[in-house]
């Protein structure tokens, strides 16, 4: 019994310590990003742009594939259920609202956590192993400003953009299935899709994606910087970055949805 409560206690302490470290990193990144203009040397724009290409442009193919498949599946499954109530024409509404409010931001964030989060953790972890982070420190340069800030800033800009792409592509996927497979009139499908959407659906989805981007960036960079040792540790940090990011994305999504639901009633 004592061991049981002891293990729960140590797990809780471990969790709180992790959250505290994440907040510590958040404070350092935000002060470096916010006071960048006032600093002697601002954030390197080239580095931010480079990271934006990596996390944004290069992620477009996979984001489109996932978004399109998601829209198609949603239309098929939705139509199958709606048919029982004679409401097949509402398939477009179901796809557009669920994608804009929930599935678009969530799926895009999970794909980016796997693709970019893993990359960030492995890259910074390897830099740590090869003493590149120590080299920056000994040159009197802050690794947070040079490595973490550009990655987090870039992701906070590109993920909301990728979510818009996911939403649009998923709606197109849903349209193709709705019209070609389910047999809904194209004009009716489009009008029902847009009738159901309100502005709140779009901006709450984008606000969530901004939060997810900050989470993925902070967690992945934190895992990368925590590497001490060799290749084994880089592997551990990479896995941990993806797993922690996805778990936190789902938890924060749940909390944010509740906040938006109660704080911003339609």
């Amino acid at each position, binding site marked *: 019994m004592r061991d049981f409560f002891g293990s729960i206690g140590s797990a809780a302490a471990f969790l709180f310590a992790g959250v505290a470290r994440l907040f510590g990193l958040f404070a350092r990144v935000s002060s470096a990003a916010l006071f960048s203009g006032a600093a002697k*040397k601002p954030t390197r724009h080239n580095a931010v742009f480079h990271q934006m290409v990596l996390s944004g442009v290069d992620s477009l193919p996979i984001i489109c594939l996932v978004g399109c498949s998601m829209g198609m599946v949603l239309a098929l499954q939705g139509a199958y259920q709606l048919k029982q109530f004679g409401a097949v024409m509402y398939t477009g509404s179901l796809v557009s609202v669920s994608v804009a409010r929930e599935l678009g931001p969530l799926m895009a964030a999970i794909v980016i956590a796997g693709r970019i989060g893993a990359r960030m953790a492995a890259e910074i972890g390897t*830099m740590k192993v*090869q*003493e*590149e982070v*120590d*080299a920056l*420190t*000994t*040159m*009197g*340069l*802050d690794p947070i400003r040079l490595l973490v800030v550009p990655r987090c800033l870039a992701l906070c800009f590109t993920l909301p953009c990728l979510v818009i792409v996911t939403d649009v592509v998923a709606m197109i996927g849903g349209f193709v299935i709705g019209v070609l497979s389910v047999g809904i009139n194209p004009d009716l499908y489009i009008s029902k899709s847009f009738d159901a959407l309100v502005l709140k659906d779009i901006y709450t989805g984008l606000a969530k994606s901004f939060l997810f981007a900050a989470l993925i960036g902070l967690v992945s960079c934190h895992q990368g910087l925590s590497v001490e040792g060799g290749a084994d540790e880089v592997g551990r940090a990479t896995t941990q970055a993806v797993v922690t990011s996805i778990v936190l994305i789902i938890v924060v999504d749940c909390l944010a949805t509740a906040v938006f639901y109660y704080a911003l009633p339609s």
Partner: protein
Amino acid sequence: MITIKGLTKSFGERVVLNGIDLEIPEGKITVIMGGSGGGKSTLLRHLIGLNKPDEGLILIDNENIVDLSFNQMNEVRRKFGMLFQGSALFNSMTVFENVALPLQEHTDLSEEIIKIIVKVKLELVGLTGFEDFMPFEISGGMKKRVALARAIALDPKIVFYDEPGAGLDPITASMIDQLILDLSQKLKITSVVVTHEMQSAFKIADQIVMLHKGKVLEIGSPDRIRNSQNPYVQQFINGEHEGAIPFKQTSEAYLKGLLET
């Protein structure tokens, strides 16, 4: 220039540095030698402010760096450069960008001036024309030389070298030794070299410090070290597997030795 007084550091029960007192003279080359686990690299990490000691002082230009904040320490770090064992070049940057980084971040010089300085530094290490190469496109010895060019980019007063010849063929290692000598003689840079390569140490050193189990065992000119009567020093410089440090020991003695160091 650098004064170390009573420097002590433990990792758990293991005492890695045990009251080190040391004076590193200005403009000279000081070589720190010792066996693996003797505390050389830990001492170096303390000198560059990557580790904080449990006790003791490190004075650089009469300023104790032990209690400095991150930002204050960064100001002190501008006085020195560091050559890491594995070169630690930024793999996503070209040779030019690697050498230019400290200049871009610490000075307000124009890009044109930075280009000229980088060219001069690369010429100093014999790598003219390699500006656009990526680190993975050049050999280990060339990487070391680029890292050296980066370390001296801001014209530091002190350069620290961690195992400069490690993993290099004898000719390239000798070239690196010559570069260290040139920098010291031409630019009057104070050099601190951590190595366990005897030939290199005796070639370049003005002063040799022998560390063993976290303590200074012997200190002096290369001749003094060569003629030392200390059995550990003799075993080390002659590279003998049997001597004051036994080749094989009992598990109790091994454990005791580990806890002592």
